[in-house]
């Protein structure tokens, strides 16, 4: 019988009511009396020298309040990078400045040059057309490998190179890895590209800056996954506003997928301009602007090699990756191809020796940063593709080759610096074999062949590192922030609970799932618990939501605060019942004295805390409110096995997803319905990456895919119903909930399954195709079959 409340219940989401009735409060729904609107004039060339910007005619246009250019931001900080990577020689990465508005040069299509503030958006847009620009176009740097050759044009002249860093991991292992390759019985090599993607949350970014002259307080309403981080970065590094004079609010946010983690120029501009003009300033991104200003994702070019011994055991792995940083370092960009990628290269396998080299390269393209999975999809894709290729070369079953090399004993210290606490990779694979009906595949293949189609089955495993992570560890790795999470649990006099969390919900359903945890702990109904998030004025300093960390880190902080509440409440209950504190038990919303029939209700204890007439005032303070900051001792390591079946039309090369099955081990699960939904969404995005999506630049750095006419988003008819299973559960050993995180798994685990299935289908038709780069479009498949 499924649970109907508390941990493990598929509670319906309370936030749905406002979203379903059109009464959500997204940032673009916020309008401040007297607000002005800003339109950003953006570069239409990839690389150019700004000779002059003449705003005189534009400034005289109707409704124009003021036009800002880079000159207005001289002496003001640029957008900071939050992670410093040290290269293989021990040198810090190259870190060029990132001005709010372009200064001297434009470096990518979409780089903001001028900001026109006017009474209406139409007036601002009209005036922007009257700005006279003299920009001398320079050769664009687009191809990463060409960018690091001698004589390449430079994105940033003063650093003298386009190489941000050349990272080796673990550098000390390099010699041993080389030696293992020299002794290998078999080496499989694969070169591939992990295609550049655009996260595309359906809500475009919005920023509304406001300023109160009487108090001197600035407020920014913004579409962010982490308002406290924006307050810190923008206040401390860009605008010089202390935290107590700056409030950042991220209300209902329409999806993030990573791209709303980062601090963007438009946020700083609206906050700055509101103070300058003493008037609220609003910016709403158009979708076209989003394509050229939201941080992009992925864009790796990789060569991976796997060494095996004569018994098909993996003996060593080495990879060389070029990772595109774009024109500037976005907030967490340097960490993605390194610490979120290199550390995952062991995957689910006991490969003893691994060496990862990453060259991060500046190009005249939009900055690239974390997108759902962030580094882990890139690691998983190359690893699971090269294993499939090795199995084919060796003539062994790809599932058996994986099983043979699975890690089976935990905790397991990988050769790439992380320690997996729990997992059971055979269990998720066994479950996959069952739910994907491997046994019936040959019959389905025959059915497809009878229709003139090729059918393929692709499998892969994945491991990810979530719940990022211990602050002392990430500090050693170059993070310029802590990665704890916070929660304040406030119990009101009549027993209701308000949790103010530093986590942020932008689709994840925290308002529903977090109360389930409190309900389980205290034994009160979920509707007695309210979740507050997304406002720096209301929640303690928090690090926000990304890396599938909300429940594992934010939920753990909430548990710690609730434990403090319960401990204090037990003291009060003991006093009220004249019993010993050690004998007090809390169950189903009532405190009782063990071995007696004495009890007091939760509400009575809460009331006593706020009306302390009969209260141990000499021992404890009145009130019932506690705050906890939780800093995990390790990452969490969700894992799973995915299977995709495709049909390929040999006439056209079109690939159709016939079925998709996913088994994930997320440890304990608070709301199974929400977890299923997270996996569905991740798989949808993974199928999008594998078959449809591609952010394309031409050789001049022109963005070719800047609208939904050109960037192929997955639609309902591109995907099937998914089979997902989360019954394999090895709880995390180091957080109080035993949870691992589920937000990114689908996007990490699905692309290799799709491509493996396509390659399998082509081989079944006699086409010896070893690899097709994503997106596996009909033209690419057809070319591979007929090449």
């Amino acid at each position: 019988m499924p649970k109907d409340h508390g941990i493990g219940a598929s509670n319906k989401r309370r936030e749905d009511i406002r979203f379903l009735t059109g009464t959500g409060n997204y940032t673009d729904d916020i309008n401040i009396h007297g607000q002005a609107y800003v339109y950003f004039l953006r570069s239409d060339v990839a690389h150019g020298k700004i000779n002059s910007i003449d705003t005189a005619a534009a400034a005289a246009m109707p409704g124009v309040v003021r036009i800002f250019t880079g000159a207005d931001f001289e002496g003001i900080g640029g957008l900071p990078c939050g992670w410093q990577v040290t290269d293989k020689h021990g040198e810090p990465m190259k870190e060029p400045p990132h001005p709010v508005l372009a200064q001297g040069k434009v470096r990518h299509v979409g780089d903001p040059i001028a900001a026109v503030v006017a009474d209406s958006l139409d007036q601002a847009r009209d005036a922007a057309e009257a700005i006279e620009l003299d920009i001398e176009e320079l050769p664009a740097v687009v191809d990463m490998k060409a960018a690091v050759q001698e004589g390449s044009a430079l994105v940033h002249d003063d650093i003298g190179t386009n190489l941000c860093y050349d990272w080796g991991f673990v550098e000390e292992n390099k010699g041993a890895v080389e030696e293992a390759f020299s002794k290998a019985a078999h080496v499989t090599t694969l070169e591939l590209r992990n295609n550049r993607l655009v996260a595309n949350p359906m809500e475009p970014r919005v920023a509304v800056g406001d300023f109160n002259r009487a108090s001197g307080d600035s407020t920014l309403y913004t579409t962010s996954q982490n308002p406290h981080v924006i307050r810190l970065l923008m206040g401390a590094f860009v605008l010089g506003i202390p935290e107590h004079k700056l409030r950042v609010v991220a209300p209902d946010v329409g999806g993030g997928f990573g791209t709303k983690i980062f601090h963007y120029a438009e946020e700083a501009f609206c906050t700055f301009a509101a103070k300058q003009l003493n008037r609220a300033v609003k910016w709403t991104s158009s979708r076209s602007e989003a394509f050229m200003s939201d941080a992009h994702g992925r864009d790796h070019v990789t060569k991976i090699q796997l060494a095996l011994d004569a018994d098909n055991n993996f003996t060593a792995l080495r990879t060389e990756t070029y990772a595109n940083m774009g024109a500037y370092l976005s907030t967490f960009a340097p960490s993605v191809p390194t610490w979120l990628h290199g550390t995952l290269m062991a995957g689910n396998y006991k490969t003893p020796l691994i060496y990862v080299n990453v060259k991060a390269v500046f190009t005249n393209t939009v900055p690239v940063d974390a997108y759902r999975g962030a580094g882990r999809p890139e690691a998983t894709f190359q690893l699971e593709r090269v294993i499939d290729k090795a199995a084919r070369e060796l003539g062994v079953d790809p599932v058996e080759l994986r099983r043979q090399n699975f890690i089976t004993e935990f905790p397991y210290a990988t050769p790439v610096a992380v320690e997996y606490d729990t997992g059971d990779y055979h269990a998720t694979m066994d479950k996959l074999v069952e739910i994907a009906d491997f046994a019936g595949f040959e019959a389905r293949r025959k059915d497809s062949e009878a229709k003139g189609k090729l059918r393929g089955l692709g499998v892969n495993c994945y491991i990810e590192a979530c719940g990022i992570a211990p602050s002392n560890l990430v500090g050693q790795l170059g993070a310029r922030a802590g990665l704890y999470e916070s929660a304040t649990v406030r119990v009101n006099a009549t027993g209701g609970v308000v949790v103010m969390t530093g986590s942020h919900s932008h689709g994840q359903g925290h308002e529903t799932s977090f109360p389930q945890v409190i309900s389980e702990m205290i034994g009160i109904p979920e509707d007695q618990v309210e979740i507050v998030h997304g406002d720096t004025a209301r929640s303690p300093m928090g690090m926000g939501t990304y890396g599938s960390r909300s429940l594992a880190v934010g939920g753990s902080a909430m548990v710690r605060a609730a434990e403090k509440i319960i401990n204090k409440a037990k003291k009060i209950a003991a006093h009220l019942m004249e019993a010993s504190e050690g004998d007090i038990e809390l169950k189903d919303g009532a405190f009782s004295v063990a071995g007696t029939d004495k009890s007091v209700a939760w509400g009575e204890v809460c009331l006593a805390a706020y009306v302390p007439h009969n209260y141990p005032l000499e021992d404890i303070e009145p009130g019932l409110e506690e705050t906890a900051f939780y800093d995990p001792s390790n990452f969490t390591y969700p894992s799973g096995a995915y299977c995709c079946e495709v049909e390929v039309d040999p006439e056209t090369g079109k690939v159709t997803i016939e079925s998709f099955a996913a088994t994930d081990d997320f440890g304990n699960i608070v709301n199974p319905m929400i977890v299923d939904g997270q996996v569905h969404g991740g798989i949808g995005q993974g199928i999008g990456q594998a078959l449809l999506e591609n952010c394309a630049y031409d050789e001049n750095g022109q963005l070719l895919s800047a609208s939904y006419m050109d960037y192929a988003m997955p639609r309902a008819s591109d995907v099937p119903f998914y089979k997902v299973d989360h019954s394999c559960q090895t709880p995390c050993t180091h957080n109080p909930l035993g949870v691992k995180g589920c937000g990114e798994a689908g996007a990490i685990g699905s692309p290799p399954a799709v491509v493996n299935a396509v390659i399998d289908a082509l081989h079944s038709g006699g086409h010896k195709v070893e690899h097709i780069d994503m997106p596996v479009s009909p033209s690419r498949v057809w070319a591979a079959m007929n090449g």
Partner: protein
Amino acid sequence: MAKISMKVNGRDVSGEVEGRTLLVQFLRDQLGLTGTHVGCDTSQCGACTVQVDGKQVKSCTMFAAEAEGAEVSTIEGEAAQDGTLSAIQAAFQEHHGLQCGFCTPGMVMAAKSLLEVNPKPTEAEVRHHLEGNICRCTGYHNIVKAIMAASGQDVGAIAAE
């Protein structure tokens, strides 16, 4: 500027608009009906889907002035006065057919238009009808399931776990 009048969710409304003002801008900026969303600028995403004279329309594709005299239905008019959700809205909640909620008003309005002309659509018909509505969160699984459930079909057999 031109004066326009129309009926929105059963109420007579009017306002002054420029020729270039889109219906969605009129709904959001002048009427404060912010449930209708703007997710793109090429009429691809469907977040702004409403009904005009009973037909499914992307309100970013139509000038406000073109809706002169029309009857417009938006997401705000879907639930009953007492807050009871419509069958489609209730099915979306029951089957977790929404996550961030941004595409949801458009999805609900598109589903309403589908079920009005095709009360028992197949899975393929639902997916085809949603061609003009993009969701980035759900992978469509629970949206399709919710719409089929709202049409009274048994969705218990659809793989969930």
